[in-house]
């Protein structure tokens, strides 16, 4: 019976720890401390050196839980990534994720060698363990604190962190193999990498498509869609790992595929995964906090801090500046990308691999990684918002759109129910306008449900639900926001005509006969603004192109989404209309200047 008791105790303690983690998020949100460190701290408090006194050194469990948690986090990150957002940053993020990681590891290695008294392979392993940015940390901290980054910078960081984990995992595993088995030829290693990447991509893409197909074909009972997608992600991960492909790359890609296709129950899947990844992060950090042994840490803390500082101030910036050289980023953006090389659970997870295999000095890698992560989260995580503002990569805060409620309608994918609270100054209420593709379906007033006909006239304070295609739901927002008091902007400043920010320079050239650089013809106007303005766009920011001016007319999600076209003036501009008095004044002024000879 004693063994059963110990199982029960483990369950109880584990659950209490996770619950403490969840509850602590309230506290941490209130005080704005980097949440992840908080969880690490909880783990340490519960651990062997803290008041909790729990002894936990099961590296195997750590590895399993860490893998699952990381797979879910990456999958969730992929699910929320829009093709549209990443298209423009694919190349820079890929270079950062591969060459960048390698460079960072190479530059960190010599310091690790001398500071920690290691041989070259061991030093390189130390570099590899801490080389990749952490997807969980980046996804979380980049969106936390109401911060909104310039889209190109934000997307680059997110895609980099999503795709560099697989590369860092690969690098670490290769080095661990080298250390435990001895020789391997460079050609062999390169082959293995290509195999991992290609197979991982294949499994991810095919797996993602199969999941979409299954979701839309199989009639699952209500509520099982989300768990189905979650487990499907883990199946894809496991399958890829067994096939010696990169499971992390596969789940990330599968997430992107699933997130960008219409699927049943999309909204409930996203909500469920939000909670699942949140839990995964908490579990991961609490566990890592438990795993660390502060007494052992004391001995290696000084060299470890040295490694962390070199990583933050030399290796990462050098790697970023070199990798982003061919792409159009200004120095402030490169500085910011360098600074937001957030390290997180991935590093500690990677550091547990040598322990799992039983390499000599295995605990040293772990301790170094632990110190690096703490320093990175503490300094970089804490100053992220500040750095973003100082380096002009943060976007000015704008009021958020109206709260939109989206409900899936089982049985079909073309329409969903979209709900809004009716605001007194909304376009809908004031002008009674609604796009032709949406259909008011029900109105809720004083907790009573009415048909639109019964509810006529709809008044402020009602809730209205409309049928609309999911991809257009966002376009409904403008009908339900409170309209700003009509400060009619000078139309001349904002341009004569408007076009969407998502059209390309080529589209514009085709209609207006303006000359554009053929190399830039496929660039969208929003990207054009991103690239050519060296500060975050504001309404009214103008960029010339051939004979016309592009003017940022409205911003959404940090991108220019409506562009005004300011057409060239006539050669003989109409004389400004003057009142008789103004005309007289002008005449007098002209006379005066001629007289005074100025």
């Amino acid at each position, binding site marked *: 019976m004693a063994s059963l008791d110990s199982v029960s105790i483990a369950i109880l303690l584990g659950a209490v720890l996770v619950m403490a983690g969840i509850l602590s998020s309230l506290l941490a949100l209130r005080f704005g401390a980097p949440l992840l460190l908080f969880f690490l701290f909880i783990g340490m408090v519960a651990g062997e050196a803290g008041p909790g006194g729990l002894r936990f050194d099961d590296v195997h469990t750590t590895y399993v839980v860490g893998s699952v948690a990381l797979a879910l986090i990456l999958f969730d990150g992929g699910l929320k990534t829009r093709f549209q957002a990443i298209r423009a940053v694919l190349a820079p993020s890929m270079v950062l994720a591969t060459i960048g990681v390698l460079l960072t590891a190479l530059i960190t290695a010599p310091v690790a060698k001398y500071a920690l008294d290691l041989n070259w392979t061991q030093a390189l392993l130390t570099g590899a363990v801490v080389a990749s940015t952490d997807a969980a940390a980046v996804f979380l901290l980049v969106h936390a604190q109401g911060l909104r980054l310039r889209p190109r910078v934000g997307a680059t960081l997110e895609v980099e962190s999503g795709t560099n984990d697989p590369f860092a995992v690969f690098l670490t595993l290769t080095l661990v193999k080298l250390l435990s088995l001895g020789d391997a030829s460079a050609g062999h290693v390169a082959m293995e990498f290509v195999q991992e990447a290609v197979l991982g991509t294949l499994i991810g893409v095919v797996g993602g498509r199969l999941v979409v197909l299954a979701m839309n074909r199989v009639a699952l009972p209500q509520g099982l869609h989300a768990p189905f997608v979650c487990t499907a992600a883990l199946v894809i991960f496991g399958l890829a790992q067994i096939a010696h492909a990169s499971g992390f790359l596969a789940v990330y890609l599968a997430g992107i595929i699933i997130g960008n296709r219409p699927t049943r129950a999309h909204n409930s899947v996203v909500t469920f995964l939000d909670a699942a990844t949140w839990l995964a992060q908490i579990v991961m950090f609490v566990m890592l906090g438990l795993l660390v042994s502060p007494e052992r840490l004391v001995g290696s803390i000084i060299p470890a801090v040295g490694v962390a500082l070199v990583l933050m101030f030399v290796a990462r910036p050098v790697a970023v500046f070199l990798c982003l050289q061919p792409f159009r980023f200004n120095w402030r953006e490169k500085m910011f990308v360098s600074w937001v090389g957030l390290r997180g659970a991935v590093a500690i997870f990677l550091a547990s691999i040598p322990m799992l295999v039983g390499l000599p000095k295995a605990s040293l890698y772990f301790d170094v990684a632990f110190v690096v992560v703490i320093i990175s989260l503490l300094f970089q995580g804490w100053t992220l918002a500040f750095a973003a503002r100082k380096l002009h990569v943060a976007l000015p805060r704008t009021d958020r759109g109206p709260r939109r409620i989206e409900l899936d309608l089982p049985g079909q994918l073309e329409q969903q129910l979209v709900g809004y609270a009716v605001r007194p100054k909304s*376009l809908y209420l004031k*002008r009674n*306008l609604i*796009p*032709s593709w949406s259909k008011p379906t029900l109105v809720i007033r004083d907790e009573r449900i009415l048909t639109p006909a019964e509810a006529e006239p709809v008044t402020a304070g009602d809730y209205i639900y409309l049928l609309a295609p999911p991809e257009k739901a966002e376009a409904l927002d*403008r*009908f339900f926001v409170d*309209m700003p008091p*009509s400060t009619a902007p000078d*139309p*001349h400043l904002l341009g*004569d*005509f*408007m*076009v*969407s920010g998502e*059209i390309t320079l080529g*589209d*514009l050239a*085709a*209609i*207006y*006969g303006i000359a554009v650089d053929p190399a830039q013809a496929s660039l969208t106007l929003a990207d054009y603004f991103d690239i050519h303005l060296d500060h975050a766009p504001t309404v009214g920011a103008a960029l010339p192109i051939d*004979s*016309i001016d592009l003017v940022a*007319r*409205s911003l959404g999600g940090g991108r220019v989404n*409506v*562009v005004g076209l300011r*057409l*060239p*003036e*006539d050669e003989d501009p*109409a*004389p400004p*209309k003057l009142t008789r008095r103004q005309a007289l004044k002008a005449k007098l002024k002209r006379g005066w200047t001629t007289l005074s000879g100025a």
Partner: protein
Amino acid sequence: MTITDLVAPEAIIPALKVNSKKQALQELAARASALTGQNDRAIFEVLLQREKLGTTAVGYGVAIPHGKLPKLDKLFGLFARLDRPIDFEAMDGQPVDLVFLLLAPEGAGADHLKALARIARLLRDQDVAKKLRASRDAQAIYSVLALPPATAA
């Protein structure tokens, strides 16, 4: 170049009855086709293509649909006052009741842009718009459009 160089007296529709943006474009394309001899389907497609990039409603109840038609020999304008305002997906949300259609030949380049600018700036003038809305027949509308910009008010 004045507006009346672009739009002939017979290319003015004083009270067009349409219910939607699409119907308005179809109707305008049909009228333009009758006056230019170009295919109405082709004109409609060109206009639709431009609307896909973003609405040509410029605010204050005015829309200026436009596009390039390769086979046209010169700039062609057509003005319509709508019987009842319709939603044209305008940024300011105002329903549209004044519509100026402009078609340009392939090589019109700078002239095309200048004509568009001229039309946009004329119709933006609130006094001009008020007069156009108050005009009941084609002749009256034509005389408002024919006024030189400085004295239009």
